[in-house]
């Protein structure tokens, strides 16, 4: 097989997630592309936990659809995840015999799995390691055996993970793993799911999630200050800064609230440093006033919103793309704030660097719209040549410009050289009140219009940034998909599947969501008869934004659904088939008018 999706579920203490992590490391070392998503019940500790690992010989762009292998340590816990762990006739179900369920009486109504195997997982853990805690090591042994993965990588992982504990614990888990592998060897699957060897072996793969990637990219871009407040699912970004920023001479502040977090970021930027904050939807609402201040004071900053289900507390641990309208339009005043969105963990590196570049170059706050799926899923990432990424610094005044310095001087580009405290001759008043070129408060309508024009004009070049758009497929294809964020990976995979069955479809993935690059969309939609805007929001927020600025062909419709339930490639392909049938029907109708 070239592609395999494994889903595992159990109780909080079963070590499901660490088993998933071990699979990732082993996959990376063997050159597979892999993707790990975790899902938990609402409890902070205990309760049900699950993970999905997708292993692939080619780059995996999404966490995939139906499970090829389901590992069930406890049926109650497994069933709680419902459509997050979909099982059908293609699935091999491996479960703990201790659950006492007969293989032909699985609690999966209407589903006859490919194979159902009861393995005495808990019993084997106890026999080898002396504790049921080693169930996850047994599971890893089973999977390594059945899928044909190298065992050494797992054993190394076990030694690393338990190295800090006693030699006895390490040994116990090694034994548990070996027992699992042996069981697999002695009980071959009816239809083996051995994973093919990767086409090419990439050395030095990374295993990382989107939040850590975002924070590391920020440090790479020269971020020297982070201010924020804990909120799921973005807290890992702040935690990363808490561990790392000091090493690079920077500082962080866990503020008393979301407003103070971004307030300190505004201050640090005023003081001349690159600065960032991170939050999720409710925090974005609180930060909105400060974003307005940064816009009018023309201070660069990056504000990350790791989207979750909303409004309000909503679905705090689940992914959704429902903050796009907020990102684009929550500002008071005549404001244009750039909005960027990464499409994968790997892409988060470049997009985060780009967010800083745009912020610094244009002296504006930039919203980086990540989502829980990207932020908290782990991916194997091929080594990134960081030297290939340009880092932009803000334009500081020259000695000549400091003579009678005007902070908001009119320039062709609309960008004025920016000083900072400590720079002699650069003294000015930054303010939230409208101001003239020198920074002096002004209530003049002429000054206000002139400054609005400057602040909006300077961002025009962004709309020409073709490098912030990914286009795939035949440019003349009559069918089109537009998708963004984590869902873009699903859409791209769906398009690939569709092309394999002869459907001519092209894909546009904007990483710059706002300002809307009208010309790029117009060009893309030229000749398009119908298509889909695929996104994880109930309203179809990107579709609505596009309708505001672009002549979207009438046949292009939203494929939008609320968060938590993943959009699957198969569902997109099915909709595309429908569009093709409709198109053919229309062609027939044009040739043979109804009489």
């Amino acid at each position, binding site marked *: 097989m070239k592609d395999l999706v494994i889903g595992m579920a159990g109780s909080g203490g079963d070590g499901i997630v660490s088993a998933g992590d071990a699979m990732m490391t082993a996959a990376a070392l063997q050159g597979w592309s892999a993707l790990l998503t975790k899902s938990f019940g609402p409890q902070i500790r205990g309760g049900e936990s699950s993970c999905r690992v997708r292993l692939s010989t080619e780059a995996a762009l999404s966490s995939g659809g139906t499970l090829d292998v389901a590992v069930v340590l406890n049926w109650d816990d497994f069933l709680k995840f419902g459509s997050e762990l979909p099982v059908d006739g293609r699935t091999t179900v491996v479960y703990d015999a201790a659950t006492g369920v007969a293989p032909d009486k699985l609690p999966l109504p209407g589903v006859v799995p490919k194979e159902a195997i009861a393995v005495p997982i808990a019993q084997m853990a106890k026999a080898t390691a002396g504790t049921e805690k080693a169930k996850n090591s047994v599971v890893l042994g089973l999977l390594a055996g059945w899928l044909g993965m190298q065992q050494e990588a797992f054993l190394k992982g076990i030694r690393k993970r338990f190295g800090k504990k006693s030699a006895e614990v390490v040994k116990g888990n090694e034994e548990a793993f070996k027992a699992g592998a042996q069981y697999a060897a002695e009980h071959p699957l009816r239809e083996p799911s051995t994973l093919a060897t990767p086409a090419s072996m990439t050395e030095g793969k990374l295993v990382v999630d989107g939040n850590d990637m975002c924070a590391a990219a920020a440090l790479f871009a020269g971020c020297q200050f982070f201010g924020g407040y804990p909120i799921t699912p973005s807290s890992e970004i702040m935690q990363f800064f808490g561990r790392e920023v*000091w090493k690079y001479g920077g500082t962080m502040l866990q503020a008393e609230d979301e407003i103070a977090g971004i307030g300190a970021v*505004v201050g640090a930027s005023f*003081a001349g440093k690159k*600065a960032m904050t991170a939050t999720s939807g409710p925090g974005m609402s609180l930060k909105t006033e400060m974003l307005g201040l940064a816009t009018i004071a023309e201070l660069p900053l990056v504000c990350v919103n790791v989207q979750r289900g909303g409004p309000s507390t909503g679905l705090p641990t689940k992914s959704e793309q429902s903050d796009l309208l907020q990102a684009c339009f929550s500002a008071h005043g005549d404001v244009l704030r750039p909005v960027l969105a990464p499409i994968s963990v790997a892409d988060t590196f470049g997009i985060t660097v780009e967010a800083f570049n745009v912020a610094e170059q244009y002296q504006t706050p930039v919203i980086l719209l990540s989502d829980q799926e990207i932020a908290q899923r782990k991916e194997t990432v091929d080594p990134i040549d*960081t030297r290939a990424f340009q880092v932009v610094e803000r334009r500081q005044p020259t000695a000549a410009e400091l003579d009678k310095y005007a902070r908001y001087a009119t320039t062709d580009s609309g960008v004025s050289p920016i000083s900072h405290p400590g720079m002699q001759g650069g003294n000015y008043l930054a303010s939230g009140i409208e101001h003239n070129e020198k920074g002096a*408060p002004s209530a003049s309508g002429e000054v206000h219009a002139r400054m609005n024009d400057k602040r909006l004009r300077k961002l025009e070049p962004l709309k020409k940034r073709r490098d912030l758009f990914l286009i795939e497929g035949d440019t003349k294809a009559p069918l089109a998909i537009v998708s963004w964020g984590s869902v873009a990976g699903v859409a791209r995979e769906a398009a690939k599947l569709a092309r394999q069955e002869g459907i001519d479809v092209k894909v546009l993935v904007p990483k710059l969501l706002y300002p809307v690059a009208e010309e790029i969309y117009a060009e893309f939609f030229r000749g398009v008869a119908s298509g889909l805007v695929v996104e994880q929001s109930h309203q179809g927020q990107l579709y609505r934004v596009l309708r505001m600025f672009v002549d979207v062909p009438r046949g292009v419709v939203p494929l939008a659904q609320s968060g938590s339930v993943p959009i699957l490639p198969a569902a997109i392909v099915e909709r595309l088939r429908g569009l093709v049938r409709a198109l053919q029907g229309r062609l027939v109708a044009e040739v043979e008018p109804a009489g």
Partner: protein
Amino acid sequence: MTSVSVASIEPYQAKDYKSDLKPIWCPGCGDFGVVQAIYRALASVGRPPHEIAFVSGIGCSSRIPGYTTAYGFNSVHGRALPIAQGIKLASPELLVLVAGGDGDGFSIGGGHVAHAVRRNMDLTYIVMDNQIYGLTKGQLSPTSPRGLRTASSSWGSLEDPVNPLLYVLGYGASFVAQGTPADMSGLAAVIEEAIRFPGFAFVNVQSPCITYGQENQQLKAQKGVLQPLASLGHDPADRLKAMALATEYGTKLYTGVFYRNPEPPPTYEAEARLRQEEGRALARPKHEILEMFRAQ
């Protein structure tokens, strides 16, 4: 220990800190005196204007940074303290002043004060307390006395006022003082001492509103009742006594230093520097930063 550097070789005068902007305050506003006292204090301290960041929120008094030659930041309502903290952490070598009104500091921005205090960054926070909202034309403020009739309390205020001195002492501040433009040299001296204090320093200034303020709060009335704490023999190292005196806020007008911690805790920025010094050796070259995620 962070502290304000000693006066530079070139002596500065009060006028060096005065900008060309003409204040828009009402004639007779107490804030004219406050800005003069700040000029004088800054001249005594002697830091060049470009090494000073002066942050405010919104309100009549928050216009004050624009009237100085420092780097000013007239920000949004209630958020001067968080912004000032970001500035201080980004550039600890700067002298950072924060100013605003009682509404800015103890109503909309009230949640920030406790945290600014406990972080103990080397900031000087000056509140121009006039017990009224002047800029919005005369509504109740958090320090308005109970029963006060204002534009928004035609039948009299239903609330007890905030006691800024007692709050800030209660939060654990190491430097708490009060002044009034009715005593200019006392006010300048207390602001200078606050600036020189190595940590978070709070100065409450009874700065009357000539337009909407109460008659008995005006400068002339203050002159008759103010009592310098020094003249009472108050020991500023005595925190409990300071708190006892602070409870008389609203009834007595004490000026000078209520409390000055003889052993102030380390500042946030000093602690940050220690972590930076310790962490430096652990840094990877930036272009190799992703190596930390390498599968092994």
